[in-house]
């Protein structure tokens, strides 16, 4: 099994972020002064732990025996045949315990919380996947767990709310602002600033203040490390393209990172195009945002001419976020990764194709990456290979899809 933290032990040309947490002009630490000390502590502990054999062993043990890693690399033969172009390989993150890649990060961060002696963890969640992954590891390690969730999302994702409660987490509906993910993150920051002595904030994506974008990336990078080794072993070559959906961007950063120095490999992130970029109703800051500061870092952001953060739209609650991880902003600006978008309709079409051709229900988030494959695989040669991060399973989205189909379950 690939080593989740080994990237740091080899010498690499791509060394990001800088010591103070910058990815070029992006990233950094834009927080209330009260949190600086906790962030310094976290950064210092992480520097020690990432090379600590005991910590690494504990992490690997949990990833192997609790999460079920490594996840398979799977050739989607019927989908490939249907599209008539490049071979489509799926990195099956849907097969993780809890149904998505998110648990790789929460396991790592919960172990850090334990090392810091903090008995309580908090998290923000949109669709509920990160909340469930946090509640899961909190139960496993005996940590108190409060999850902030926008009041609207609590209504829309009642299944995940109940899952969290079953595992002993306390779900707190957030009624301020737009009552969605960004407001849940604001509220989690307010909790953390108040309870910083005994609480670790498990941020669920590669955003937030330094060192979060780095830590979350490193824990998620186990996806790309495994996939890269599996491509070489099973296929005998690297993929031509690596594709992943991008909301905050953790699954994409996780699969991209080990490929960054493989110059022949295209890295493609797919943002939520909602009703179309031109409609303004989307969640695609890398396609249609400007540089701004929110939730502790500088990155691309959907904000209006007065700097107010805009409300976003996506069929997929997990992509419905106005910002994006700063390392994606950096990779875009240096031209190492490209970022496109898929609309709600395109994602739904790709969702159905995978249902019917492969017997897999992907998450609606993941379906955005698949939509890029549907549009682009036919244009590629049959000797080419696309690696898709199948970041999560779609069980949680059944009610949304049924609703679109006009069916009441």
């Amino acid at each position, binding site marked *: 099994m690939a080593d989740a933290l080994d990237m740091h032990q080899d010498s690499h040309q791509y060394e990001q972020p800088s010591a103070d947490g910058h990815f070029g002009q992006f990233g950094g*630490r834009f927080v209330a*002064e009260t949190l*600086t000390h906790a962030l310094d502590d976290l950064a210092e502990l992480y520097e020690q732990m990432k090379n600590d054999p005991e910590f690494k062993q504990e992490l690997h043990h949990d990833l192997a025996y609790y999460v079920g890693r490594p996840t398979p690399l799977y050739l989607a033969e019927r989908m490939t045949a249907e599209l008539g172009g490049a071979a489509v390989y799926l990195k099956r993150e849907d097969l993780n315990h809890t149904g998505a890649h998110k648990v790789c990060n929460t396991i790592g961060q919960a172990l850090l919380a334990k090392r810091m002696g903090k008995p309580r963890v908090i998290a923000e969640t949109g669709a509920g996947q990160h909340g469930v992954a946090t509640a899961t590891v909190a139960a496993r390690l005996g940590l108190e767990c409060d999850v902030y969730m926008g009041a609207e999302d609590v209504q829309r994702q009642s299944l995940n709310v109940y899952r969290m409660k079953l595992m002993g987490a306390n779900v707190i509906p957030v009624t301020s*602002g737009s009552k969605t993910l960004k407001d849940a993150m604001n509220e989690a920051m307010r909790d953390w600033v108040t309870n910083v002595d005994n609480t670790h904030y498990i941020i669920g994506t590669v955003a937030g203040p330094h060192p979060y974008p780095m830590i979350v990336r490193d824990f998620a990078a186990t996806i790309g490390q495994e996939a890269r080794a599996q491509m070489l072993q099973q296929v005998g070559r690297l993929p031509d393209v690596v594709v992943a959906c991008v909301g905050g961007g953790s699954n994409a950063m996780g699969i991209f990172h080990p490929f960054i120095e493989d110059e022949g490999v295209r890295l493609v992130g797919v943002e939520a195009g909602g009703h179309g970029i031109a409609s303004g109703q989307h969640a695609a800051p890398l396609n249609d945002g400007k540089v701004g*500061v929110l*939730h502790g870092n500088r990155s691309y952001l959907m904000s209006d001419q007065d700097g*107010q*953060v805009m409300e976003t739209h996506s069929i997929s609650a997990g992509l419905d976020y106005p910002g994006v991880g700063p390392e994606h902003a950096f990779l875009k600006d240096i031209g190492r990764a490209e970022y496109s978008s898929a609309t709600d309709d395109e994602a739904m079409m790709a969702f159905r194709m995978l249902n019917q051709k492969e017997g897999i229900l992907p998450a609606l988030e993941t379906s955005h990456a698949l939509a890029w494959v549907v549009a682009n695989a036919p244009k590629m040669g049959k000797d080419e290979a696309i690696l898709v991060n199948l970041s999560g399973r779609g069980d949680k989205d059944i009610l949304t899809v049924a609703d679109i189909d006009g069916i009441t379950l």
Partner: protein
Amino acid sequence: MNATVGGGRIRQCFEEVRVQGKKALISFITAGDPGVDYTVPAMHSLVQGGVDILELGIPFSDPEAEGPTIQAANERALENGMTLLQVLEMVAEFRKKNTETPVVLMGYLNSILAMSDFPSRASSAGVDGLIMVNLPPEEGATLQSALADHGMDLIYLIAPTTTPARTLSILQQASGFVYCVSLKGTTGAGHVQAEEVIARTAELQQIAELPIAVGFGIKDAQTARALSANADGIVVGSALVNLMTEPQGPEVVCQRLHAAVASIRQGLDD
């Protein structure tokens, strides 16, 4: 210490207060809350009631360091269509009748980033300083020097969790005054520990060249008096914003604000 002293009005204000053996009373309200026609009259009433420095909040969609009171004020102001440009116009309007009281804007960095010529516009409007809740000194140098070029201060905060070494570093970069956050938490929180603040400001006073103002969670004259023991000023925010939640006309609200700050003024001066 390289503490820069810009913004003539802020420095002069603290000097005058010190000469009189008093503490500076600093008030916070959110611009445009509860209506756009409340703010300028409220600023004048606050000064008449005994306020020395006015803080004016720039409404922002994601005020992550604020408690429920000021969050709601931000939402009300945004519903009223407030923009940063209007905030500056309010300051300019206030300056027509008052050229002495320092005005400090407080808010979040994204608002400022959206106005590329903020320093010159703010300076022309009569702004003296800026408090950016989410801009620590490590990220603040560029903005600080742009503001300094226009005679304005970027005011940094020191928190209960700030280490001694970091406190020294912040003091070296500070300008205007030092905002000492009284508690671990958001604005308007109810768990301020007077003894802890008094001890901490005593230490701070030994090493700080600039004036020290204490804020967060100060609701009444008694707390204001206690917390100002080793400080040069205190900030009252949520307690005032709470008096503005219902739009009963600027006159009623102004009377309430006047009475509230007059009571705190008396508590501080006694």
